[in-house]
């Protein structure tokens, strides 16, 4: 009896030992490969910055060119002598259009690479995913895309438009120039829904009329019924917050249904030059968009920027608003570092307040209070060659107001 129990115990012990042994061998095998990489570059010679965008997956179409713009800015700064006497060294990570991957890679950049700052993200979903990582690890993120507002993290600088620098002025302009009856069409996720919430309040306050509000799933491809609804309800304007490839289907099918920009005004806020290329200029000619910058924007800085971008990445490439916003993000950070004399995040944030920069879109300025930037607003019309022609602009820069505090009608929105 005791003998058999002992034998059983022995067997189990041996099994357990075998498992722990293999496990430890495997684990040490994995971990030993890591420090070798880290030691490769001593931290003193370069300033490491992170670049975190989707280089694969559904968002790659937009984010690859944004990454290109950031790399170009880094190269230019390095060519001009670097920063604080050191070269900037980009560490590129792929968020793979997956929000959890974004959070993991952000953690890796901050904890393992110990980068001075990160330039990255496109979708609001990815920004929301990395936000807690940056706040916990006291990191700094430069976010280059227009978005729905209602956010202002101390660990993020927003170089794209806040709603009052894109959506609100566009709606106001449309109401004054194109008519009161508005049809809201968007993809079904956070940005279009929040944007439309703002627009609905604005319509109420400014005497506009909401004809309909329609959402389709991301990736939706059949717009025949929605186009029929648009036809039947005869709006003056379709305000389009569709995102991604749905725009291709929508504008293609709109044209097939015999509706051109002459018959119906549409205004898009997520379609820039890069997207027009995908939709086909012929399908979008004459339709309106609202942004802060176009490739055709007439400033000396922009001529230089477009020339350099095309020289580096190919004559068939176009620049657009997020590309420009990503490019100036790098310069604004570099200016702040120069002013602070260090890459310490708290000091850089303090130094960044009020910094001005001659950007391709015009002279921009960082607003210290909410870490967004002052930008001009421009409404444009798509031309036959796929570029966008400015038809109206605010002239001077507009103060960023992510929570729309300066608008009486927006009182109920920010909570």
């Amino acid at each position, binding site marked *: 009896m005791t003998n058999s129990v002992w034998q059983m115990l022995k067997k189990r012990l041996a099994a357990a030992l075998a498992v722990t042994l293999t496990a430890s061998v495997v684990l040490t095998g994995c971990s030993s490969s890591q420090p070798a990489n880290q030691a490769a570059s001593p931290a003193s010679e370069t300033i490491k910055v992170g670049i975190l965008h989707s280089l694969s997956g559904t968002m790659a179409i937009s984010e690859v060119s944004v990454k290109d713009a950031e790399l170009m800015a880094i190269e230019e700064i390095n060519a001009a002598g670097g920063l604080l006497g050191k070269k900037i060294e980009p560490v590129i990570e792929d968020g793979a259009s997956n929000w959890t991957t974004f959070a993991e890679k952000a953690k890796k950049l901050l904890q393992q690479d110990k980068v001075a700052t990160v330039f990255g993200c496109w979708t609001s979903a990815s920004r929301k995913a990395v936000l807690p990582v940056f706040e916990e690890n006291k990191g700094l993120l430069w976010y280059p895309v227009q978005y729905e507002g209602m956010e202002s993290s101390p660990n993020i600088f927003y170089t794209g438009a806040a709603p009052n620098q894109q959506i609100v002025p566009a709606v106001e302009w449309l109401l004054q120039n194109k008519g009161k009856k508005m049809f809201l069409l968007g993809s079904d996720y956070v940005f279009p829904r929040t944007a439309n919430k703002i627009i609905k309040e604005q319509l109420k306050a400014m005497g506009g009329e909401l004809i309909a509000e329609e959402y389709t799933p991301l990736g939706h491809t059949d717009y*025949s019924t929605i186009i029929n*609804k648009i*036809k*039947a309800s005869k709006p003056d304007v379709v305000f389009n917050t569709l995102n991604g490839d749905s725009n291709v289907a929508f504008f293609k099918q709109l044209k097939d*249904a015999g509706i051109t920009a002459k018959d119906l005004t549409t205004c898009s806020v997520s379609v820039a030059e890069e997207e027009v290329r995908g939709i086909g200029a012929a399908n979008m000619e004459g339709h309106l968009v609202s942004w802060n910058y176009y490739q055709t924007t007439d400033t000396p800085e922009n001529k230089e920027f477009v020339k350099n971008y095309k020289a580096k990445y190919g004559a068939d490439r176009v620049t657009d608003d997020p590309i420009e916003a990503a490019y100036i993000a790098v310069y604004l950070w570099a200016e702040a570092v120069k002013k602070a004399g260090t890459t310490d995040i708290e000091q850089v944030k303090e130094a960044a307040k009020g910094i001005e920069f001659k950007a391709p879109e015009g002279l921009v300025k960082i607003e210290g209070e909410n870490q967004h930037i002052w930008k001009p607003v421009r409404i444009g019309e798509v031309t036959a060659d796929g570029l966008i022609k400015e038809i109206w602009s605010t002239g001077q820069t507009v103060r960023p107001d992510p929570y729309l505090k300066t608008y009486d009608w927006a009182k109920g929105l920010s909570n």
Partner: protein
Amino acid sequence: METYILQLFNGISVSSIYILAALGLAITFGLMKVINMAHGEFIMIGAYATYVMQNIFLHYVDKSLFGYYFVAAIPVAFLVAGAMGFLLEGAVIKHLYGRPLDSILATWGISLVLQQLARSIFGAPNVDVQSPGWLEGALVISQGLQFPYKRLFIIVLVIACIIGVFVFLYKSKYGIQIRAVMQNRAMAASLGINTRLVDAYTFAVGSGIAGIAGCALTLLGSIGSTVGTYYIVDTFMVVVLGGVGTLLGTIAGGLVIGTANTTFEFFTNTSLGKVLVFTLVILFLQWRPKGLFTINSRSLD
């Protein structure tokens, strides 16, 4: 009035796309009982085949002939998707006959592999296929009543495919062999039919028709590696609603789901419309589990 006529037309148009996407599935799932989760990827293969044909015509063929690339793309899409189906059947599916759970997992894995393959070859961003000039514009009845040529063309294409499949299955020698094998495999084999070969080309034909569906989809939107996944649920729904194993059922199922979808979408909105359609289909299947059309067959299993 014009709005309702146009809406009816939209319903028929969406139905035609569902029918085309489901026709291949009616063969592989309906006749062969293979639950092929990679069916959507054959649609994708057809779409990319069209894209490749466009580029070939753009770069290597005289400009005046560019308008005809789409005509050439239809058989090419069929052949490429069919060939992929033939390979897949030989490599994987044939080991899984009669094991529906295993085949779901295996074909789902294959669908992921094919999507990744497409991403590696054509890049992650979606690509756009330029429609030929003769499909631009619309048949104008009156100012408010215009039927886009592309959608009319797809309807004609679907009718042609349906006729083609009927002739193939009911008139040709191969079709008769297919039906014989599906009804009674042992008897067909003892009469000298090579049932292995019949399986392989039946699956290839089903996949090829999915390829044609992909070709048609390029007219409506852009093409990406996940284009098929948007259709896979709907197409299974069409086949199940119509009644597994009947072609007439698939056509009826496609018409019902397509028109119901657009009608509900018109009166409510896009997301709710889809929910309503699926709810009604589920309720209907509770009442008639075999679908709209049932076959009275002696090959009861």
